[in-house]
């Protein structure tokens, strides 16, 4: 998956469909009497995700399983029950400072326990979580690939002792995977030109994402939460764009050599098309990444 970070999730095909069926066949799944999960529900969710996000069924299955495994944590982080709020207020007082305490966790809405339980397990909110997991996986795969490429590239061009020591400190396996990733795309050994295919691939990936950003996610949960999905989709794509950009920087800054026109031209064409992203409309999303402002304010509002 790391070897094709820009399209870690290929569209569904006959092969993946068969693989999906084999893996979920009764013979590979311990009997459903084990009450921790419901295999039919998982299968349906996975197929829904595969269909909406146009990704292969096996990957969708993996994401669905991740969602199931993390659901307890997610549910805990959603909010406090009445019992809990009572206890917290007992501890910090019910006055201004006490309520600011709860407010400080603005991400967590206090919800009555029953309603919370129901909404949490509803199909809509489950599907929303699936989409979020899918987007987060996409982004992380690219980021991990970027780190790996950076490690491998700087080793490939290291000239001084200092660099070599640093490379020795990098965990060997990081380097190993990074090299595999790199060598799969490398032509020739000794110059930046050898990385031309990888840079080209990065630029293509950037272009795809810029297009996707304009087009929208195409994912819909029965008309609900579409705004939320689109917002997350935009945020995710911008982050992906940034990580790919970091990867390009990692590659081209690793050498003192000059750059062939086959690398620089596609790059300049791409960014000039978008005016260096200077007038990019969607960038406002980035500001919502870190809940810094509301956090600092909450504390001083009392």
């Amino acid at each position, binding site marked *: 998956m790391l070897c094709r970070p820009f399209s870690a999730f290929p569209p569904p095909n006959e092969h993946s469909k068969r693989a999906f069926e084999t893996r979920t066949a009764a013979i590979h799944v311990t009997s459903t009497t084990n009450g921790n999960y419901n295999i039919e529900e998982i299968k349906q969710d996975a197929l829904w995700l595969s269909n909406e996000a146009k990704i292969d069924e096996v990957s969708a299955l993996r994401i669905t399983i991740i969602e199931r495994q993390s659901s307890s944590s997610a549910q805990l982080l959603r909010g406090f029950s009445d019992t809990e709020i009572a206890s917290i207020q007992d501890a910090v007082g019910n006055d201004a400072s006490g309520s600011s305490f709860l407010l400080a966790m603005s991400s967590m809405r206090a919800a009555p326990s029953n309603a919370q339980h129901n909404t949490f397990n509803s199909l809509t909110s489950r599907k929303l979580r699936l989409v979020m997991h899918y987007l987060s996986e996409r982004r992380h795969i690219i980021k991990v690939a970027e780190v790996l490429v950076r490690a491998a590239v*700087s080793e490939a061009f290291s000239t001084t002792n200092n660099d070599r020591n640093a490379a020795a400190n990098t965990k060997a396996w990081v380097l190993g995977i990074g090299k595999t990733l790199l060598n799969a795309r490398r032509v020739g050994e000794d110059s930046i030109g050898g990385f031309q295919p990888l840079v080209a691939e990065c630029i293509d990936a950037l272009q795809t994402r810029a297009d996707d950003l304009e087009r929208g996610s195409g994912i819909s949960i029965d008309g609900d939460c579409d705004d939320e999905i689109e917002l997350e989709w935009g945020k995710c794509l911008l982050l992906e764009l940034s990580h790919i950009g970091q990867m390009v*920087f990692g590659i081209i800054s690793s050498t003192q050599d000059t750059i062939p026109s086959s690398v620089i031209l596609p790059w300049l064409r791409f960014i000039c098309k978008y005016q260096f992203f200077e007038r990019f409309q969607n960038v406002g999303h980035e500001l919502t990444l870190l809940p810094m402002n509301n956090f600092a304010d909450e504390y001083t509002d009392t």
Partner: protein
Amino acid sequence: MYLQSLVSIVSLTMLKLPVTIRLVCSYDDRESRHSSKPTSFIFDSSAVNEINTLLFGAARDYLLVASPTIFAWSMILQAVREVVNMPRPARKSHQTTAEDFLEDSQEPFEGPSNASRQRSTSSDRDSSVLEKMLQSLPKISSDKDPIRQLAEIAGNDCEVFNVVLELATNFCKLASFESPGKVGAKMRIVLLELVRYSLEWVQYLPEVILAAEGLLTGGDNFYSIIERARLPPDLNAAAEFLRDHELLVPRLLNVAYARFPFETIPFLKLVKALSAGRDCDDDGILHATTVLELMGSITVMLPNNFKGYDTFREDQNDNQVLLTSDLRLFSERRTNTIFSGTGSRNQLALTVSSNDATRDEMVIPFGTTGRVIREEGPVVVQWIYEYSGLKFLGRLLESALPHSVFVDNLLHCATNNGVVAEIIGLFAMLLSATARARVERPDPEGIEAAHKLLNAASQGVRRNGDIITVIFDHFENAVQEIHLPGTTDGALDVLISSVQFIWALVPVVPGRVWPLLARSKLLNVDGRGGRLGDILASTEIIIGRFEFLSGCIRVFEALVEDAITHAVARTSPSSSLSRTPTSDTIGTGVTAKAMSDILLALVRAMVDVLESFSNWKFTSLDEKQGIVSGILDIFNNILHFVYGADNHTKPEQKLTGMFAAAAKHLTEVFLSSSASNLPVQPLLKILADGVSTPYSTIFIGGTQAWIRQTRIALKYAIALIRLASSQGLSRSYLEMELFKLSPILVRVYTANDAYKSLVVELLEAMVTDAASVDEEPPSLLGPLGSDSAKLFFNVLADFSLPLEDEDLDVNIWNLMSAVMSKRQQWFAIYLLTGNVPRDSLKKPIDKADATRRTVLSKALDGLSRIDKLSSRTARAMLKFVAVSGDFWPWSISEWQNHSTFLKRIFDYITTLQTLISVNDTSKAETTCDALQLASLIGEVLALYLHQCRQWGDISSARTLLARVANYAKNAVTMQGYNPSLHSNLRRNFESRFPGCKLSSFERTKSERAPLGSYYVYCMDISEKMLSYDSSWLGVRGSGFHEEFKRASLNLSLIEARLVSFG
């Protein structure tokens, strides 16, 4: 604006400015045709045409983000033009014609003129690739030279230097969290190259200086610059700068130099930024110091009435002048003229007889030549005069003191706090960078070099003082005056840089810092002073930035570190001191009482800060978290130093006694049982903030700071609760609050993997301590309610999957063992049955719940494969099984449902026996582990036997009993105690460190350690206090460091045997 910034830098990097310009300048038609080297885009005409189209397009749109790239491209084109216009033989080397553009510029920035184009005479190179490039340049407006216009758009309209500064200080800082600083450093180098080449065209301008300073420091504050990891030379912007004798040094540094001290600030800023790179020569002297040590010229503004000079060599028309009398830079204030600095008296003081000149070097002597730089208004002259910049700055600082004996005649900075702050800041940077010139932390060589630096700076100060007293005087003045209405501006800056200087001083001459701080009014020592709070209230709390407070915390941290590392060295009699090179500077004269008073005052001040900071407005979240983390980290250390080692009952009499009063204050404040007026609430809030930890793949630094703050707060809470247990204190308000806040704690657990282990440790400490008093302990799960409790169990029961973190697993098992034995019934029953008691009363057992594997069965399954487990995990699981069997005997029936469990652990004893019987000290650790395992298995089997008797199941008991007897027979021999090891250690240690007891380094109950090399002695404290002496490390493992570990291990072995068979 992350993406834009990134795109901006990537595009600039693509052009590879230095390589491309070099290629252009060394271009040769014939060579390139036969070259096999990879070709650059610059020799690809169609590519160049396309780049022209694209970048001229971007320029027409005035894209700020593109301006660095556009600017760089204009420079490349200009280089091409110069090469084309140059006669062929001159092409080989790059000769700049920049002077053409430097003179008489009207606009703030002026691009290259097309003057050089007219010099083109030859027509025989029309076919040259380079020339073709120039022929098809697009036009922006018809009447102007396109290259010049391109540069002007970037330079003037887009203010490219401001863009560079922004990128350097904001974006590169974000990026520098990637692969320890390297990515950000690489980006800054790329930007520095842009600034470098621009110097061919651009004058010495404020924005260029600012951009260069920003690139050198990366927008970091003083402390993070100094503590930044060392960068390899090719990524060190300061080293790059100083190596460049073609452009950066002559066009930027030397110009600033030539204007100094008439223009004081730019030069000081540049030198400070350069010293930040810790770029030094072979002797560990910073290159920045070398620049200052011997200055070759001094530029001053002459007073209107000064006539002691004459023009000279008028024929050459370069404004040369000659001094006809001595020119004093400083005059001595005479008692009768202190307040009468009128023109005529100054005139008297300015010229001195040659007798005086020999006494004081700070005089520009008669006959010195110079050049007039400014003729209108007061004349400004650059004198060719050699002097020490360090000494000069020292004298300048002294003359700026209100009651100084010196008056500075020419600069008049006495009232200019900005200059004073800048000079002190420069000394702080030089000092701390020198001390760390070659290594990450101050080392003896660095400290020696730092001493020399202090001496050089003290040369200019009058005989009974030195640079340290001068700076402390400035500091003290600012401390006492800053909160008065009408205080001069910049007093806060003086405070900020003085604190930086004090921080830099601590590792170099700690013996000077303690007494000076004791006398200062900053802290409330002996009931005097205590101005810190006033200063904060009147300055930083209003503006929302806390550089001064952050600095004070860093000084505090450094003092704590100094107190512990020199604790032994300061108390030992002189015989051992003579062996330490720094004995004269650590200040053996500082009494423990004085240190104790200062530390107590500091702790009080920090507790005050912690109590009120949540009402302050912070402009930077990083700063807020840095302050909180810094304070709590110091508190943690103090508790650790006092209560971590030495079982002496009176903390004041320990080696770490100077912390005792401070630690006592901390425990009184945080472990009190009353609910009034305490900083407990802020601590709880900080813990609760952990829930909102952001998760980002871009703002890595922000996430790291957040995680650090939460982790430190968790550690502090753990330390407090454990301390309460070991000191037998009554249940504290903090602990009761923590129980009530368990809903928040379990969410902190789920918020980030980095918290899990610590939250579990905290819960365990709470559960254990709560059960230590007679009254019923509060329920850990009560406040959660059944739904959240079940969710938390689910999360907890995943253990560390999928990451398999052994520490976390062990901590979770330990928590569960504690729950079993410490009266947390509800929690315990859930772990054993998988059901919450309240549920089982209400309704029939839910089918799904019933089939879920209980934690107990997880343990039993795990132990059925005991040979696959790590020794630590196996021990923790066995302990859990044993404790649950002991306290909840009915759970033993579950053991029989796991048929292989008993058989496997029993069989495993055979494996253990072979390990135990090995009598080899090098394998003592393994033996120790095996013994502990065997003893736990023994415990489990004993419980089972006991239960069998209850059930009346005699037959299985009998078979087991037979084997247990065998097992016991094989292992009764007590062996392994090595008395000579311990007595030799004690004898050697006490002769090496007279006055010290070995027992001072033993661990206390409040900080337990597993059996092994770290069991008996507290190694980190020992290391801090003893490592100044060479005997600590010794030669090839013969030092006390290894001896301590061997002794620990030997005693662990005995302990393990005692537990097994006792």
